[in-house]
């Protein structure tokens, strides 16, 4: 009987603790995300630049699963890549310290909604500039020029789009331009879309597809991970990557464009490019 009562007490306390922990976590999250914007009156409608300065932190959406561009190192927990180095350069320009950034993981599917919700200040996530997307967000100038090609098994006979035969299965990621492009260029192919490129690559390795298609810049990263695969050389599209910014925020777009220009002129851009891609930029 006594033990029974004690047990009830413990359970009750546990419940209270859990509830208050959740409530606290909720508060913490809220103040972190919006504290900056709501700190002073009249922050509503202020540009991204003002929001970043007030928060003293640049919150940027990047990929966590893309070798060379944005990849979380499981050993250290750090996210590293080309996109992250660009984000750091922006933080350095705006806030004077490249470490004043907060990275948030996005996927091709979640990035536009997250930018629209105000959860992130910008998307630097290998995002191709398209007319459709321009209706939803504003883009900076091109910060990386890629082209779509294929990742295939080393001994595969596929070398370009022309080698694709009817009924072949092509895997890629949901919501990506690559999926739309391949459907338009080769309507006879079966296109299977996965949550992200890591899963698409897993599916390819499991024999669920004949080739994986996306921008060659990403494919090189995958081929680096698994030497049993190679990237076909010919590209059949041009994919200009841009940094996505909230619609109508011309001020922040200009800041980013000025910075990109500056980096290309002083060689910093080439340095970052070579560090990740291994070659010099073509233009």
């Amino acid at each position, binding site marked *: 009987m006594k033990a029974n009562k004690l047990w009830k007490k413990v359970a009750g306390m546990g419940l209270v603790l859990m509830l208050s922990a959740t409530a606290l976590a909720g508060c913490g999250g809220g103040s972190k995300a919006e504290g900056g914007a709501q700190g002073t009156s009249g922050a509503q409608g202020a540009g991204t630049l003002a929001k970043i300065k007030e928060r003293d932190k640049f919150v940027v959406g990047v990929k966590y699963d893309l070798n060379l561009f944005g990849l979380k190192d499981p050993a250290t927990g750090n996210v590293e890549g080309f996109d992250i180095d660009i984000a750091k350069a922006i933080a350095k320009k705006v806030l004077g310290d490249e470490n004043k950034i907060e990275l948030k993981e996005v996927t091709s*599917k979640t990035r536009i909604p997250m930018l629209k919700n105000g959860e992130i200040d910008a998307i630097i996530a290998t995002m191709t500039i398209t007319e459709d997307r321009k209706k939803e967000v504003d883009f900076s100038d091109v910060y990386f020029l890629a082209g779509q090609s294929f990742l295939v098994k080393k001994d595969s006979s596929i070398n370009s789009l022309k080698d694709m035969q009817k009924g072949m299965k092509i895997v890629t990621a*949901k919501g990506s331009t690559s999926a739309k492009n391949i459907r338009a260029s080769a309507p006879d192919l079966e296109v299977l879309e996965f949550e992200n490129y890591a899963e698409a690559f897993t*599916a390819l390795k499991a024999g669920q597809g004949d080739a994986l298609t996306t921008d060659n810049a990403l494919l090189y990263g995958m081929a680096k991970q698994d030497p049993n695969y190679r990237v076909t050389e010919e590209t059949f599209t041009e994919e200009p990557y841009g940094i996505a910014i909230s619609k109508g925020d011309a001020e922040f777009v200009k800041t980013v464009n000025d910075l990109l220009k500056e980096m290309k002129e002083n060689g910093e851009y080439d340095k970052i490019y070579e560090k990740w891609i291994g070659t010099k930029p073509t233009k």
Partner: protein
Amino acid sequence: MLDFSILFDHMDMYLEGFWNTLQASLLALVGSFVLGTLFAIFRISPIGPLKWIATAYVEFVRNIPLILVVFLFFVGLPAIGIVLEPFIAGTLGLTVYTAAFIAETIRAGILAIPKGQTEAARSSGLTYGQTMRYIILPQAIKVVIPPMGNQFINLVKNSSILGVIAGLDLMYFGDLISADTFVTFDVYIFVAVFYLILTLPLSAFVSYLERRLAGSR
């Protein structure tokens, strides 16, 4: 207000997804019922090895996430040379997963029938199989209908796991439509409505069965 043009513009995708979800659910429903019943009988059978196999199966499968069971079929089997279509791999995973829960539900139903019934049946000369088939299972079915209905409703909703492995179900096409239109909320509201078209009648049917069988007990 909901943007119905999204629904009408993408009706073909919604319908293809709906049709595949319906197929996957029906196949998995029948499959998991048969497999689950079999394992339930194994689990309470007097034959040691059968009991161990069934216990191991139930405990292993129901204690890991559904997505891992599905991955077992999707990327695990190819490792030993068997490549299945995503739809098939997903439906198999769903069947195997649900069967573990069905087995437990049915086992509980069988154990709810007083032991005296088995003893009486056995002493009047029926074999173990006959006792199960003619005496115990018909009574157990009535007990298990409400919890079983829950499992089947869960099964329909769980079929959305196919969306993760490009299984061409409702969730998969929902994701594609959302990516295509940049709309999240409205797209998935319509997806939810299609799921309700499947689950609400199922739910009503279970209630009906429950009422009918309650009278005959």
